[in-house]
C-alpha cells in the first residue's frame, strides 16, 4: 500500500522530506503539498507513507517536531531539520547524485 503509485522508495522519500523541511519548519500537510507542487504533481505522497516516514525521521533525530499555531490559529505539528538531519541530507544527496549520474551515463552510452 505505501508505494503504489510512483515507486517512491523509503530512503528516497526520507531524503525528499529532509530537503523540503531544510527550507524551514513545515507541518505534514504542507510537506505533502510542497512535494506535489515542486514535482509538478509527479509525486502524490499518500498519507500512509508520509506520516510513518515523518515519525521515523523524528525517531532518528533527523527532524525535530514542535506543536505550533498555524496562520489560521489551529495547532499543528511542525517538523524542522536538525543538525544531524542536515548531515544526513548531504550524505544522501551526494549518494543520489552519484547514482543518477551513473544511471544516466549507462542509459546514454551502453548501446
Amino acid at each position, binding site marked *: *500500500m505505501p508505494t503504489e503509485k510512483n515507486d517512491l522508495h523509503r530512503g528516497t522519500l526520507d531524503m525528499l522530506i529532509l530537503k523540503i523541511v531544510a527550507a524551514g519548519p513545515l*507541518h*505534514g*500537510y504542507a510537506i*505533502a503539498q510542497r512535494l506535489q507542487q515542486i514535482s509538478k504533481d509527479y509525486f502524490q505522497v*499518500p*498519507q*500512509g*507513507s508520509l*506520516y*510513518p516516514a515523518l*515519525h*521515523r525521521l*523524528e*525517531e532518528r533525530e533527523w527532524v525535530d517536531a514542535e*506543536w505550533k499555531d498555524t496562520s489560521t490559529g*489551529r*495547532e*499543528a*505539528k511542525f517538523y524542522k531539520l536538525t543538525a544531524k538531519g542536515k548531515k544526513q541530507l548531504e550524505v544522501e544527496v551526494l549518494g543520489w547524485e552519484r547514482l543518477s549520474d551513473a544511471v544516466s551515463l549507462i542509459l546514454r552510452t551502453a548501446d
Partner: protein
Amino acid sequence: MRWLRRLGKKPLVEKRLDSELQFHLEQQIADYIASGMPAEEARRRANLEFGGVERFKEECRETRWENRLELLLHDLQFAVRGLRKNPRFTFAAVLALALGIGASTAIFSVIYNALVAPFPYKDQGRLVTLRVHDLDQRGDGEGDFRGLMSFPELKDYLEQNHVFDGLIANCEIDVVYDAGDNNSYLSANYVTPGTFELYGVAPLLGRGLEAADYQPGATPVFVLRHSTWINQFGADTGVIGKTFRLNGVRRTLVGVMPPRFAWGGANLWMPRDPAVVNVMRGTFPQYWGVVAHLKPGVSLQEAEADLNIIGARIAPNYREDYPTHFHVSAESFVHAVVGQGFRRTLFVLFAAVGLLLLIGCANVASLLLARATTRGREFAVRAALGASRARLVRQLLLESLLLALGGAVVGVLFAWAGILGLSFAMPPFTIPSETVIEMNGWVLLFGTGVAFATVIIFGLFPALQASRVDVQDALRGAGKGIGGTAAKSRLRNAVIVLEVALSIILLFTAGLFMRSFVAIQSVSLGWQPDHLLIGRLPLPSEHYKTGAQLVSFFEPLMRNLKATPGIESASPVSTTPPYGGFGGNIEIPGKTHTGEWESLIQLVGPEYFLIVRQPLVAGHMFTEADVTTARKVAVINQTFQRRFLGEGDPLGRTVNLDVLKKVPDVVTDRSFQVIGVAADAMNVGLERPVEPEVWVPYSVTGSGMRRLLVRTTADPGSMNSTVRKAVWSIDPTVAFAEGEPLAEFLDTFSYAQPRLGFFLVSTFAAIGLLLVTLGVYSVIAYTTSRRTHEIGIRMALGAAPADVLKMVLKTGLALVVPGIAIGILVSFAISRSVVSQLWGVSPYDPLSAVSVVVLLLAIGLLACWIPARRATRVSPVTALHYE
C-alpha cells in the same frame, strides 16, 4: 484494536497522533472547498484519499520505541489469551515439550554426574588408575585385566615413574570396633601418604591424615566418613581426639570428612601401618587399588609408555602377577569406576530420551501446523484491521515462545522429580558412593533450546504463510476446503510419519529391555534363595591360620545357631551364591589335556546342600566327622563330571585340586575322592552358563575368605542381629559383617540394573506412545473436521457411514503404516548396538517387533476411529452448513 481502547486512558502520544492526522484531513478538506468543491463532496473525497487511517497510525506507532515496548506487552496479553482460548491445544503442547525436556534433563544429569564428574575430588579428569592386561586373554574388555597391585609392586611404580606428580593407593581392611560391651564391623581402608592432599577435600571436622601420621612410631590415628559418623557415632562433634579400639589397637579419631568424601567406599581411613609389610585379609595378602595424578602436559599415551617400561623392568620380580604378554594401561579414574554394562545402559537410555524429546517436538510441530491452518481467517481479519505483517508474525512467535517457556518450566519440574526418583532407584554399587545426582544446567538449557527452536520453526512457518494470505480471499472463503495448501499438509504428514517411526524405535527398544529382564528373572537358579541370610566373617589372621582353628570356631557356632529358634541350619562358604567359590587349576589322574583345566572350589560345611536346597543326583554329602578330620572328600557338579570325568561312575574317582598349593595354609595332599554329584546350579552369576564346581570340607585349609550362610525359618533380615550376637559370643574379635538376606543380594546384583533399564525405557516408550497417539489423533481429527463439508456432500449423495469411516481410516493408515515400516527398519538397523548390552535377546527379536507393530497399528486405528465416527454422525444438512 479493542485491547487498545480497553486501556481506557490513551497516552499523550496517541492523542497527538490523532490530532496530527485530523489536522491533515481538515487542511485537505479546506483546500478542496477553497478550490470550489461543495463541502460534502470535499469531505467525502478527502476521507477516501486518506484511506485506512488505523493502518498507518499503527505504522507511526511502531516507529517509536517506547510504543514498541508497550506493543510487546499487548502482544503478550494477546498471545496468552490465544493460548487460553484453546486449552486442549496448550495443554498437549506444553505437556509434550515438558516430558521431552524433563526426561532428557534427568537422564543426562545422571550420565553427567555418574560418568563425567562423579567425584568431589580435585582435578578428577586427570586422575588415572593402573591396570595390567593379559594380552593372551582377549576378554570382553572387562575381565582380562588386573586392577590391583601388591604393595612392593606399587612402590616400584611410585618410585620409578616420570609421568605422575602424585600416586596413592588404598586397600580394604576389615575392622572390628570393640565398644566394650559389644563389637561391630566397619569397613576400613589403609591409605598411603599423600592421599588427602591429592584429593584436596577439606575435612568437615578436625584434620585429614598428614605426612607425620605415616611415620614409624606415630600415634595410630584414623579419619571417619560422614555417614558413619552420623549413623554410628551419633554425629557427636566431641568424638574428635578420642581413642577407639579398632582390631585391638587404640586409635585416635583426628577428623571427619564432608558427606561426599567416600574414597574406596570405606567407613574410615587409616594411614598404612609401616610395621606391617603385607596387609592381610582372611590370611591372604591384600592387594592395593592405585590412583595417580598426571603431571601437567602429560597425556594418557605418554603415561602408558612410561608405565610399560617400568612393567617390563619389574615383571621378573613378580612372576605370579604378570602374564607372559602384558600391557600396563592408565585408565581415566572417572571412566574406570562405572562398569561398562551400566555405562552402556545409560547411553541407551540417553538415546531413548533423545528420541522422546524428538517425538515431543514433532508432536508440538504437528499441533502448531494444524492450528495455524485453521487460523488463516483470523489472520486475514487482523490484517484487514491494520495489523502489519511483522506484527502478526511477532504475535505468533510470542505465542510459540510462551509455549516453549511453559514447556521448560513444567519440564524443570519433571526433571527435578525424575532426578529425585532416579537417585532412589539407582541400583547400589553401579555408581561410586561419592556421586551425587543433581540437575544439570547445561542439558536443561539444551533441551529448552530444542523446544524453543521447534516452536519457533513450526510456529513461524505457518505464521509467515498465514500473513501472506490475500485478505479478501481469506475473508471470503477460508475455513473450508481440504486442509490448507498441499505443501503445508505434506509437512504435517511428514511430521506424523516421523513421530510414528520414532516411537516404534523407542517401543522396540523397550521390548528388548523387557525381554532381557524377563529372561534374567526366569533363569532357574538350581537352589532356593528365600530364607537365606549371608554375611562375611572377617577372621583375624593372627588367630585363624589352620583348618583346625577354623573348626574350633565354626563347630560351636553352628551348634549354637542350629539351636536358635528361627534358624534351621548354617554353613561356612567361600563366596555368596550365585557365585561358586574361588577358581583354580585341577587335574584328574590318568587324564591328559591341552590347555588348563579349571574349576570353582567351595569350602563348605556338611549341611550346605540342605541349606541352599540344591539336590544331589548321586552319592552323598560329607559328614560332620569328615569336616573335623579334614578328610579329602569332594562333591562335584554335573558340569564337572561331564567335562573332566567323562563316561563311567564318578563316585570313587580322584581329583587333584592343584589350586590348594598356592594358598598360605598349603594343602600337601591335594587328591580328593569324589563321594557325591550335585545337580547343576548357577555359579557364575545369572548370565553365564554353569562352570565346573567342587565342594570340599571347609577345614582342609585355614586360608581363604569365609562367609556364613544361614537358613532361617523366620524372616532372614530379622535374624541378622541374632547371628551377630552368636558370632560375638564365640569370639569377640570376629564380627558378622554386611549381613543381608540372600534374596536382597540377588536383587541388588542381578536384577536391579536390568529392572531399572527396563523400567526407564518402558516409561519413555509409554510417554512416547501417548504423545504419538495424541499427535495422530489431533491431525486426523483436524483433517477430518476440515472435510466435514465434503463428507456431508458424500453422505447427501448416498455414501454409507461405513464408506466415510473407511475413507478416514485410510487417510490415517496412510500416515501410520509408512511410519511403522520406517520405524521397524531403523530399529533393526540399530538394535545390534542396543542388544550388545542386553542379555538373552536377539537383535531382531520377532516377538518384540510383532507386538510393537500391532500395538501401534491398534493405537493408530483408534486415534483415527474417534474422529471418523464423529464425522459419520454429522447430519448432511449440518455438514453442508459447516464452516
